[in-house]
């Protein structure tokens, strides 16, 4: 039997008395596009930070591609690409220079670098603006650069923390297509989102997280069926008694 690509076992994380994650267990298969849904403060970003080795768990274990994140963080970092929630790049560099910088940090071979960057910029409709400084980009353009930076080294596993938030519908559709392509290329993807329709459209399976606990897990169809709901939004209301957007 194939080993899961991501394994989370009884993971707990407390920050100064606040429990961000509470005995959370989860497995994600290789090549799966997994959606993590939940309101602000539910623990989604904390889980991604733990999976990247950015923070230490209070208790429990995390394995990525068979590597214990706590002990083998360096190996894990070579396998993953992370798109943080806030568009994070250097405003004094152009879009292309930002992507080049992070491609170099990920040791993308020089020969492949230009081709990869050009392809990704084209894919995200940023070719024309690639040489403008990031400080002059719109919010949506910064978010697209943010995503390119995360994926420029063609990682095996991608953690995408709300990659489409505040994007216009057209850009969001383009990003969805991009994420779908990643899945088709066999990448393992964990996607956090507030948008239920996004999760329903893209994800093979979803987990709903609230107050640090995983309260539901399954394919969108399974969850809709189980809770006799019209869509994932209704599933969330059924489980928590409130709309997810009320928390944003």
């Amino acid at each position, binding site marked *: 039997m194939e080993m899961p690509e991501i394994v989370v076992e009884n993971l707990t994380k407390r920050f100064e008395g606040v429990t961000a994650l509470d005995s959370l267990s989860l497995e994600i298969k290789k090549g799966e596009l997994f959606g993590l849904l939940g309101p602000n403060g539910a623990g989604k970003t904390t889980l991604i930070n733990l999976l990247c080795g950015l923070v230490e768990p209070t208790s429990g274990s995390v394995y990525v591609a068979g590597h214990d994140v706590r002990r083998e963080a360096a190996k894990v970092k070579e396998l993953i690409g992370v798109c943080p929630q806030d568009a994070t790049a*250097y405003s004094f560099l152009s879009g292309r220079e930002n992507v080049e910088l992070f491609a170099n940090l990920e040791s993308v071979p020089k020969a492949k670098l230009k081709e990869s960057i050009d392809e990704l910029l084209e894919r995200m409709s940023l070719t024309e603006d690639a040489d403008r400084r990031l400080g002059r980009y719109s919010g949506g353009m910064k978010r697209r650069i943010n995503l390119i930076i995360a994926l420029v080294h063609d990682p095996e596993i991608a953690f995408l923390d709300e990659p489409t938030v505040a994007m216009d519908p057209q850009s969001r559709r383009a990003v969805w297509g991009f994420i779908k392509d990643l899945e088709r290329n066999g990448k393992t993807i964990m996607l956090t989102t507030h948008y239920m329709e996004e999760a329903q459209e893209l994800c093979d399976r979803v987990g709903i997280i609230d107050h640090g606990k995983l309260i539901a897990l399954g394919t969108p169809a399974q969850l809709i069926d189980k809770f006799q709901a019209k869509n994932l939004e209704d599933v969330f209301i059924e489980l928590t008694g409130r709309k997810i957007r009320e928390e944003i």
Partner: protein
Amino acid sequence: MNFQRVSALVKKDLKRLVREPSALFMIILFPIMLTLVFGLAFGGIGGNQTVTYQVGLVNNSPLGQSSNWTQRFIGNLASVEILKIQPYSDNATAQDDLIQGKISAVIIIPQDFSRSCDSFESAPTDPNLWTNTTLQVYVDSGSMFATQAITPLIQQALATTITGQQVKSTSTSIQISSPSLVQASNTTAFEFMMPGIFAFASIFLTMIVAQSFTLDRDCGLLKRINITPTTATEFMSSQAISNMIEALIQASVVFAMAFAIGYRPKGDISTLALAFVLVLVFSLCNVGFGLITATLAKSPGAATGIAFLFIMPQMFLGTFVGASLSQSAQSISRFVPSYYVTDALTSLFLRGAPITSPSVLVDLAVTVVCSAAVLMIGVVLFKKYGKA
């Protein structure tokens, strides 16, 4: 160590230097302005004017037997271009004029001056046969340049009188009450300040480093870099390299500006090379202070304020600003790294000391040790408490 990562980070930092107005000002424009303003104010620009000092002379040596020693000494003093000798009949009048600022110094030739010179001349290698005496020198403590310049010039005139050499290479029977090791002559105030200006410009790297680290931390950029396989060693190496390049640019700009307005330091190309090495090593110290600042500061604004806790002592105690420090402040200044950089540069540029001179090598060693220690403390503190 992956050089692809290090060079990418260095390139990024150098682009920041060129593209961010605040960094460009602090690293390039500020040193240019500093050198120009000080050159204009203190004699580097505008005809290379020479500062002159009125020096009172009280001759207590009896006339007659061996008085030619005294006359020779007075003649040698008078031949120093920047000293204007003014004879006084008594010490009280001379001291009065000194207090009133009419003269910059008073020299008192002791009664046994000629006897002491005779004793040295007859037995230059046997101190047991010398008649030891002291030449009293009082200098206007309100003039930071007089305190530095006059005593060495008297020392030089005395050495010429007794030994026939300009530089006092051996001990003699006559001591100066407050001797200094400076062997300067015909020097403008600007030239006195230049070694300190070199160190001064580099001190502000502390603020640049602290601001860039806190800003990158606030924006999540440090976290983002931390997600990549870049190691802490690679990241810190890139910081060290980029800041050393910035310091090199600063030092080159300062030197070029000073040279353009007439500054000609003593020494040769090796002297200049060692001066740049000193500035480079010192820049690492300022990176360390910058990291400590970034650890303490919660925002770029706070970093600017906290950076001054490190900048001010270095500036006032260790560069040209501290040239007229009190005795106690001079003792405290030994605890700031910039003091050793300025002292070494002063020895090289002003005293014409060779690069192998023990005092220069000691200053270099202290600068290396201080810089390594401060950088290490900065890296450890930032890694442990500053990244969050």
